[in-house]
């Protein structure tokens, strides 16, 4: 988890004082599954744990330094359960080599009690193209690097790491040598999967001694069938209008194809041939499908030099009220978005996408508190893309007060500012959230509650009315005052 530096320093200072409780659990098995992808790599690690003491309820998981740096999303659950377990940063241990998180189990385990803990993480910027250049007709090969052993402060009986690719072509993988704890072939490949392990009876590994003595680096090179996309910058602006019963959302997106750079030059001919035979190159983004909310209208898609006409939209009507969340998830509009030109490896493209949504779909009025509650999604997912930097700005109606917000995950910073737009007199309050490294898991909703007094609603009509009144008064006065210096003589 990339935290910003002050906190990291603070944590590492605290860590020195923390008491090491390594003896309360034992891992009977650790299985890590890595879904090799493009810019996002999903890693699922299952810890089968056994309690050695009664009343142990805090289990500590460990991430190596590289691993920690790549990890942008972390979620802990008990196997087979939906609810996420709370966890907190334990602090850094041993010269920033290992990062520890304390997971609080729902109930304390008795001695020899067992549980299965599933840790899901999403890693960003974990892969890189290799070879770094690919011609238009070539495949796209990526490399993923990882540590051989899953670290844990507890002793582990058996441990495996599986690296699974979406295509069957795993080009190469590191065959680790002199692996401690291995009884047979330390690495095997079958079909789309490379398996490291099983390794037996590993001692507590979350220490620099262990890392220095046993840890190894493994690399897998594989073909990836989809373009590696990075959104270098996402700026979302959501603007609420109570008069228009409208929520306008506008995304400014800078897209970068982080796959292998295009070798030589782009040949339209070859591209047209490939699409004619329906064999698009895996590293070219010709179009992407975005799922926009249902009920939207006035969708616009333009870039710095105007409208982009090559896109297709299928809108769905607004869902009826009171639908369950699961049912709501199936209600969306589909936008097939095409950049002006096919996005080859290493190319950039920037665009703006926006739409109007009925306010009723995302805001309610709470009669008890007299406040509006508004939900704005953090981002619209571009499939397979990581968002490096995101800024979400929510502009509330003019005169909104008592603003409170609830983000689904903590932002790097929140700022409150004033935004001045059409027909404003005092400006509208705006809340800005900044994020880094958003993944497909970060699709939560920011909730904001605010009050709008009745008079604030009337601000605009009054302002416009006053302006026109002044105009007409001036015109009336002008008509009635003789501005000539001397009166016209009759000829």
């Amino acid at each position, binding site marked *: 988890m990339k935290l910003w530096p002050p906190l990291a320093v603070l944590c590492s200072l605290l860590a020195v004082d923390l008491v090491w409780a390594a003896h309360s659990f034992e891992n009977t098995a650790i299985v890590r599954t890595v879904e090799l992808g493009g810019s996002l790599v999903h890693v699922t690690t299952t810890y089968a744990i056994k309690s050695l003491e009664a009343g142990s309820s805090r289990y500590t998981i460990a991430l190596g330094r590289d691993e920690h740096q790549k990890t942008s999303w972390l979620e802990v659950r008990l196997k087979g359960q939906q609810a996420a377990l709370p966890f907190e940063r334990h602090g850094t241990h041993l010269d920033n080599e290992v990062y520890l998180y304390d997971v609080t189990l729902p109930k304390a385990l008795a001695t020899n009690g067992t549980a299965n803990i599933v840790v899901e993480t999403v890693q960003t910027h974990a892969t890189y193209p290799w070879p770094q250049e690919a011609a238009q007709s070539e495949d796209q090969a990526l490399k993923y690097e990882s540590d051989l052993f899953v670290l844990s402060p507890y002793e582990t009986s058996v441990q495996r790491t599986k690296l699974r690719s979406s295509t069957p072509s795993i080009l190469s993988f590191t065959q680790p040598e002199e692996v401690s704890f291995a009884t047979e072939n330390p690495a095997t490949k079958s079909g789309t999967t490379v398996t490291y392990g099983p390794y037996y009876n590993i001692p507590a590994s979350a220490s620099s001694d262990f890392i220095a003595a046993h840890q190894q680096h493994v690399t897998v090179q594989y073909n990836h069938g989809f373009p590696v996309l990075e959104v270098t910058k996402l700026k979302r602006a959501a603007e609420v209008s109570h008069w228009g019963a409208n929520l306008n959302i506008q995304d400014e997106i800078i897209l970068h194809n982080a796959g292998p750079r295009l070798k030589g*030059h*782009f040949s339209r001919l070859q591209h047209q041939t490939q699409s004619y035979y329906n064999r698009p190159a895996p590293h070219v983004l010709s179009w992407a499908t975005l799922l926009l909310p249902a009920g939207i209208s006035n969708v616009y898609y333009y870039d710095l*030099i105007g*409208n982009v006409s090559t896109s297709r939209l299928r809108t769905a009507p607004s869902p009826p009220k009171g639908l369950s969340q699961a049912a709501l998830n199936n209600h969306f509009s589909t936008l097939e978005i095409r950049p002006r*030109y096919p996005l080859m490896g290493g190319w950039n493209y920037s665009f703006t996408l926006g739409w109007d949504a009925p306010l009723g779909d995302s805001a309610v009025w709470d009669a008890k508190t007299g406040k509006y509650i508004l939900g704005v999604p953090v981002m619209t997912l571009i499939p397979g893309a990581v968002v490096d930097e995101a800024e979400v700005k929510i502009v509330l109606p003019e005169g909104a007060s008592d603003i409170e917000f609830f983000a689904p995950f903590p932002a790097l910073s929140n700022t409150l500012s004033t935004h001045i737009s059409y027909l404003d007199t005092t400006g509208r309050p705006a809340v800005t959230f900044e994020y880094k490294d958003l993944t497909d898991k970060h699709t939560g909703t920011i909730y904001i509650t605010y009050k709008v007094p009745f008079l604030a609603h009337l601000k605009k009509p009054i302002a416009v009315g006053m302006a026109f009144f002044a105009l007409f008064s001036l015109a009336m006065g002008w008509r009635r005052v003789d501005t000539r210096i001397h009166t016209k003589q009759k*000829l």
Partner: protein
Amino acid sequence: MTAAYSLPQDISPSFITNTASLLRIVALALISAAAIASRLFAVINFESIIHEFDPWFNYRATRVLASNGFYEFWNWFDPTAWYPLGRVVGGTIYPGLMATSGIIYNALHALNLPVDIRNVCVLLAPGFSALTAFSTYLLTKEMKSPSAGLLAAAFIGIVPGYISRSVAGSYDNEAIAIFILMFTFYAWIKALKLGSGFWGAVAALFYGYMVAAWGGYAFITNMIPLHAFVLILMGRYSSRLYVAYSSWYAIGTLASMQVPFVGFQPVRTSEHMAALGIFGLLQLLSFASLIRSHVSSSHFQTILFVSVLALTAVGVGGMGVLTWKGWIAPWTGRFYSLWDTGYAKKYIPIIASVSEHQPTAWPSFFMDLHFLIFLFPAGVILLFRGTPTTTVLPSGQITTETKIRDEHVFVIVYAVMASYFAGVMVRLMLTLTPVVCVCAAVGVSELLDVYLDPSEPEVGGEGKDGEESDAASTGSGGVTATSGAPSATATATGVASPSLGKKSAKKEKAAAAAAAANSSTGIVALDSLVSTLHPPTRTKPGIWGLDTRLTILLNTTALLLFFVLHCTYVTSSAYSSPSVVLASQNPDGSQHIIDDFREAYYWLRMNTGEGDVVMSWWDYGYQIAGMADRPTLVDNNTWNNTHIATVGKAMSSPEEIAYPILRKHDVSYVLIIFGGLIGYSGDDINKFLWMVRIAQGVWPDEIQEPNYFTPQGEYKVDAGASKAMRESLMYKMSYYRFHELFGGGQVMDRVRGQQLPSVGPTLDVLGTFPSFSPPLTLLTFGCVDEAFTSENWIVRIYEVKKEDLLGRDLKSASGFAEGKKRKRSKPVSRRRAVVA
């Protein structure tokens, strides 16, 4: 006294005046709305986008103005244009347009209306067209009557000749210039009529605005002196003329000199000398008339007249000497091409290469003006006859006489000059259009006046039948007339006006004036008008019966309706294409947008280095700067002919000659337009001969136009193409790998309808074409590489190779890379010699 139909009698004059004024306001508002709406086809069919070429520069400059402020803009040096020379933008443009949109933009933002600068620019022209309609109304009102003014406003609002330069997105100087032109003329007429220094100053300030806005200001600079001169020749010199002209000239010239691009031209170039000369002449004349008023001797007058002539001769002669000495700049080439249409083609091919500088084709008069072009002469003749002037004599009597007035002379002179210029150059159709609208409006309004007037001719007897005499008797109010013509209809016509609509607004005024003065001596303008045409007899002219009236009125209405249809059709089909975006139809009838230009420009913008120089023919310079944001060698501001010729030479030379030129100018990318795949006829191969001609103008030894034709004198790109043609960089870049699209079938260039040899140019093996059975496959490049081709192949971008790191020449380097054997028969040294 009989009338064809009866009119209500019991309406108070003040009610009529108020209603008429309200109707005029409503009519003007509707005309403005129609003028704006009819210019929005482009926005609705496409999008809010800047059109064509020059507007892209204006838009870019306006963005600089809006974001950096006025002073930054004033001092703006643009290093990315005319690489490596750069361009002092602030001093080489007419800033009026940008300043106008900058002011609008800032005003809107001050009111918390955060409108995008692009939308301000796109909608500026439609907005100003509404103002143009209003100032045309004012001008025509001065000519004839408010109803004629409304007609003229309606005409100019929708006439294609003006719409062609002012659709939404056509963000060019003409967008605001026509409004300023019309308003300056109006203020001038007003100043002349009233002898008012105030209106003269207004005219001067608008003239200053015009100078800041459009190079065509020279038209005003010469029109007003010409008008003054014609008035003097007609013996119409008056103190009003003196006051109006002197205030206009003095303030206007000072105002115009504030524009850096104009600077001291108003006192140093020939175009401005007429204005100065007339100014001097007027001083002499006024001096003469002063003396004349003191010494009333006809003998003395003659002497004065002679001395005035002598002084004029001295003035003109002095000017000639000054010109000859070079103190006054001689006429520019663009000016000469106004008198000799063949001039530009001979001496300045760059001017001739612009399509809008060509002479106008006859059909375009009808297309741009429709039935107005037929009414135009009629209107001019009516102006010769003049319009009735009502004068209130000191005795309280009102007399009306129909005679030509100073402002009529103005429109007549304007009509003659503009007609000539419109015939010479297509783009000057724009200056003809307003005067056509004014004259045609005068004509139509006259026609309607005559045929709407209910009075019937009186041949000393009764009306035709009883019913009509009844109507007439109820209509006649027992009013007598001074000129002998019965004027009962005066009141009647006026009273009827509100129900007749805006077209008879003029009569209301006449009626109101009549009523106000003396109801028993009221006179209808028309009556006296007609009576002056025909010597006053007992017979009052008029129209018999309703059938004749209806025939003519319905016919006129139909003409007006057809005019509206025509304008709408022409505007939507011919003048509303942004030319950056092309539209075609899908098989199912839906619109298919061909957006290759922006695709390629955006690719350049996003995926090349910020300082990478792009070479293209000058047409695309402004667009590349505006949309791709990259430095260009040449652009639409064609100030440096040699630089353009250099680009022309690089395009029309073989690679060996082109490559050093490209490298010397730091060119990273070469952009060309190729329409052969989808049949886009405005492509570079079709413009190629202009590149050759312009290059030939500078390097006549190296580039020769005849070399690009077949021996039979045909312009061919197929197997019969000449050697120079197929070896030129342009040809090779256009057709590189084109044949592969056809998969071995017949390779067809859809623009030129020629079939190319199925195996086509390679960009390396120059000189291996033995004679042309020269296949396209052999087309390879040594010095450039295809970098990007847009979806429909309209834009092709090539990257210029850097020098080989091992010091080989590029051809052998790329040959080595492709694994080719070096050809012994072609020693490198010989080719080197060619380069040098």
